[in-house]
């Protein structure tokens, strides 16, 4: 498992952030800010889940 194996993830995260950040908002600046916040939250959440899984695997292996 290398970092290259995770290259499929950023496009999906970007697409999800774009759609979820755009939905329900209007105005270019509001949409841009919302997309950035969504992308940031997704990245943070996925990284946190990754670290948790890594630690659990370390503990029980």
């Amino acid at each position, binding site marked *: 498992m290398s970092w290259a194996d995770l290259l*499929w993830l950023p*496009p*999906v995260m970007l*697409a*999800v952030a*774009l*759609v*979820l950040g*755009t*939905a*329900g908002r*209007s105005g*270019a600046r509001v*949409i841009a800010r919302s997309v950035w916040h969504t992308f940031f939250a997704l990245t943070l959440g996925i990284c946190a889940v990754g670290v948790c899984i890594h630690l659990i695997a370390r503990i029980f292996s």
Partner: protein
Amino acid sequence: MDVPPTAPTPPTLPASTLPPALARRSPLVAAILGWAFPGLGQLYAGRPLKALIMLGTICGLFYWGLALTGFTCVDPYTYGLEFVAHAWIGGPTAWAYWSSREIVLADPMPYLEVGRLYVAVAGLLNIVAICDAVGSVLEHNARAEDRDALRLQMEQDHLDAIARLEVARAEAAALELDVTVDLDGEEPPRPDSAIDWAAREDLP
């Protein structure tokens, strides 16, 4: 034949002084358009920027995933569960299924799993886009209702102003009549003292 007298119609406000009325749009049509092609629902709701973002994102991800699978992943017989997600994008899924009927891959695609994931995620993201299109239409219709209420209020204010003007004219005519009648040796009442303008609450 006598024509019954009709009341003169009060002058209406010229259309240029009123804010333009907004046409209502159908949420059902927005949902169907959004299902048929990502972004069309937002375009119908009058949101071109959102339409462009939805179109580029969802169709881009869909086509990218399709290309990674060699245009073979939209197949309800092989990938039945994923087709439930694909079905949320009507037009591109129909096109992909129709155009990939004859394709038989000689070698397995190296990124088949990633491509399948991309196409399925694109289909699920279009659910959000459809909901957003319906919400945009409902928001537009609420604005149209507010606009109609404002136009109605402005027309009503205009009619009220005309009515008040007519009352003022009638009172002025009555005052002149009193002045004419009371001119037999007595001092005529002064118009300023005859009407207590400060006590009139119905005047603007």
